[in-house]
């Protein structure tokens, strides 16, 4: 067993690159679903109504207090136990592990992002909300026009690192038979007994993906903060 660079470049890396779209699909779908779900989670967590904040509190605690791998197993095997064979026959796509992985990653992201968003909502300057109320905006209009957009901007840096963590978390989907980058690397490793080429190849692909995602997120952050660039330049 030696580290065979030509084998890695010609056989392993193309196979892994072919699996990159699956990893990105996992990332994009759970990022979108999870961050959309994070808004009601954060709003409920901040509510004064115990029927709202208590479930949100427990949900966040469960998502952040248990390992993601346990959550993935619970969703994959648990739903597999709950779904009857008739349902499986009706919806054959449910046999594919990717849906369970997306589901688990989404609710996990909803918990983590919900907590980040909660902090950001609390950091919105009170005067801005007061001003919006003084303009006669209803509570709902204030929330979706003033509080939420401001809060999203405030938590952008934290959200960016959360998305990097989510990209790394997609690797766990390989444990429920999803052939994303690590899943393919593992399949080749088990088939060929080559440990160095396959796993180091996967490491190279992940480093490249994290590098590119960081650049994309920086772009998005700069775009969303466009009007503030001039201000911070003045302040500096």
């Amino acid at each position, binding site marked *: 067993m030696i580290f065979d660079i030509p084998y890695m470049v010609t056989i392993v890396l193309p196979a892994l690159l072919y699996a990159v779209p699956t990893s990105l699909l996992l990332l994009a779908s759970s990022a979108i679903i999870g961050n959309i779900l994070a808004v009601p989670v954060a709003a409920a967590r901040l509510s004064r109504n115990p029927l709202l904040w208590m479930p949100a509190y427990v949900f966040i605690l469960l998502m952040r207090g248990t*390992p993601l791998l*346990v959550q993935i197993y*619970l969703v994959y095997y648990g739903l597999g136990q*709950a779904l009857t064979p008739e349902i499986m026959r009706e919806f054959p796509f449910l046999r594919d592990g990717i849906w369970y992985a997306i589901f688990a990653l989404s609710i996990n992201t909803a918990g983590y992002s919900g907590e980040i968003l909660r902090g950001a909502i609390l950091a919105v300057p009170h005067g801005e909300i007061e001003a919006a109320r003084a303009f006669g905006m209803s509570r709902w209009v204030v929330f979706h026009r003033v509080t939420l957009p401001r809060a999203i901007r405030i938590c952008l840096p934290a959200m960016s690192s959360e998305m990097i963590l989510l990209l790394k978390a997609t690797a766990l989907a390989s444990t429920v038979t999803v052939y994303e980058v690590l899943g393919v690397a593992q399949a080749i*490793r088990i088939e060929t007994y080559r440990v*160095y080429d396959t796993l*180091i190849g996967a490491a190279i692909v*992940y480093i490249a993906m*994290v590098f590119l995602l960081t650049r994309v997120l920086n772009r998005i952050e700069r775009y969303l903060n466009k009007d503030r660039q001039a201000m911070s330049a003045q302040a500096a």
Partner: protein
Amino acid sequence: MASKSDHSLWLDMAWGAEGWGDEFAYGLALTVQISLAGYAIGLALGLLGAFAKLSGRPWLRFIGDSYTTTIRALPELLLILLFYYAGTSALEKLLVHAGVASEDLQISPFVAAIASLGLIYGAYLADVLRGGIQAIPPGQIEAARAYGMHAPLRFRRIVFPQMIRYAIPGMGNQWLNITKDSALVSVIGAYELLSAGRGAATFTKEYIFYYSVTALGFLGLTIVSMVVFVRIERRANRGVRRA
């Protein structure tokens, strides 16, 4: 879970040969052991990493930065697999070749789990500790130097006590993360809480129940850790005026 079999399922959590209770307790104990040992290695590596990153020597800074950047860019599961399958076989060969170990040396998954978690968390803790060191007012270190304190004394009396205080919240977060990431080592065959849960779940086919019990075990560990860290933080800040 609200089915009529609920009652008998909880009975299956009994102690001994008929129940899964002792398996889960053993798994939880091993999860704590693996996390504690990995965290200890992580702290040692993290301290070295923090000093390397803050060093005046460019090559040391380069090593420190490459260590933390590479580890933090890779999925923890991949790193654990990499250490276990590639790292241990290379290490075994090296040790046997050097004549330190006998031919049949085999590094156990338990040891590989601790080593890999330590190596991963060393990178995360390096950044936490570096932040703690940087939060110390530079005037204090200058003053210590002016008093003629040599580097080890300066570290022991001035840098370390304050660094720890600043770093405690971050260290607490990393402890919570390592207890959760320790579940990943079940993939390389090290026995811990999730292995116990998977054993019970696949044997009985009661996946929902046993994975929920597993989750509750980790949740309990998280809640206890949070309480302990709040106490530690309060004690560390006992001499500091609150803003």
